[in-house]
């Protein structure tokens, strides 16, 4: 039963990419520049591995419960 409630909270991790990417004022900036990429671009690129890891966490935890 505890495993089930942990799962419920874990699923909220999956809401993070939505919040981080759909609220454009959060990242619609030129600076700081990283390796020549304005913030606008590398911030969004960075969400790709972050999202993968978040889904992976929820997936693995879901299997073990």
């Amino acid at each position, binding site marked *: 039963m505890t495993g089930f409630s942990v799962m419920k909270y874990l*699923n909220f991790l*999956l*809401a993070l*990419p*939505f919040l981080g*990417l*759909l*609220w*454009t*004022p959060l990242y*619609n*900036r*030129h600076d700081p*520049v990283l*390796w*020549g*990429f*304005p913030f*606008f*671009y590398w911030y*969004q*690129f960075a*969400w*790709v*591995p972050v*999202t*993968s890891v*978040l*889904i*992976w966490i*929820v*997936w693995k935890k*879901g*299997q073990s419960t």
Partner: protein
Amino acid sequence: MNTINPWALGVFVFFFAATIVVGSSIQWIRGLFHAKRDTNSHEEWSLGGREFGPWVTWFLVGGDFYTAYTVIAVPALVYAAGAYGFFALPYTIIVYPFIFLVMPKLWKLARAGGHATAADIVKARFNSRALEVVIALTGLVAVMPYIALQLIGIRTVVQALGLPGDLPLIIAFISLAAYTWLGGLHAPALTAFIKDIMIYIAVLVAVTVIPLHTGGYSALFATAAHADTVLKTGQGLPYATLALSSALAAFLYPHTLTGILASRSADTIKQNAVFLPAYTIVLGLIAMLGFMAHAAGINTTNTSMVVPLLFQSVFPAWFAGFCLAAIAVGALVPAAVMAIGAANLVTNNLLPAQANPVRASRITAFIVKIGALICVLFLNAQFAIDFQLLGGVFILQTFPALILGLLRVRFSAAAMLTGWAVGTVFGVGMCWMDGLKPIHPINLGLFSGNISTGLLSLVINIAMVALVSVMAPAKQDIPAKTTA
């Protein structure tokens, strides 16, 4: 038009033709090894026997999700509109949490009930033939502009090779028709490997070599003078809403759902949600080609030509030929899956009980491609990407029935039908009035701006579903799985 380079054309023809031949003969080759199995059965042709593991699913889902949309349409929009064209990046990120949460549930329902299409699932859930027909028809119509986008992709590269007049479109159409007719779903599943390897080679070389020509990525953003590097005022809202509506629509299409339902298990889907974002990095880098084209001095009004022209100006002829073949194969494979997905709707839901379902599917797939051809010829969209967004407006109207239908709350078929009808009429009406633009201006006093037409019509749709449900609640005594 530019003159034909024999090296570019030769390499292109070799790779493009090889893909079609390999894909088309796969059914025949499988027949040699699996003598017991009926390789001509309908489940084989349409769902690959529902046996695809993690790897094949990764290539198949990735293969029909990353299409001419990625390699032609997105860079074209970035070239013309700058940062705004990047909405494809958040779209192809947030789609994966959505897949992870929703699609395993849908897969289990489909497996338990033996469903092959969205309309099958909806019919079982709501026990309504009318709703089934409506969902199937929507899938059929929505996929046509999406295939049209793929035809434009193939046409564009053949044009770039220097072939004149209507010949590029004719070649695009015939190659697609032959490939689908002969291969069934096994053709794209196998050739998706070839497609992805070719695309990866082309893109990785492009994103490393081209910036070297133009002075690195920092110079790229410095020289991209008329392509703005961040969103302009008022672009934030359409950027976010287009990303969201595209993500919600992405896996409602008959072809993307086919890829999901053809997987072996619900866990295969979850695993793929973890690893499919690898494609998104590639998509983002391809989008950068739109900026690189400015830096390389490409100047064209036909924005779809941006990437082919860029490849031809920077690469030696033989490698440009290879890259163009990669784009063409990258359009061909998903277009075939789209046509097959649409064909399944007709044989399963619109005209069931066929004496020869494989033949019926083949013929339907062909008719769907004719519909796509008509879209190319008669719909005058400003950007190729608008075709995909137009399909999205249609397909999003199936979201309530398919996805909200998974919830424990019970909605009636009447509520879903009303929502669909009102949403579709509004969505299509707005698109028509806005001149096929995918965003619609709204003004609610404090809140005004451009919003994705698809998302707007989906909101109207859901509001209608809620309204009808409150006025005439669904009967609670119907068990969850009535006709499984």
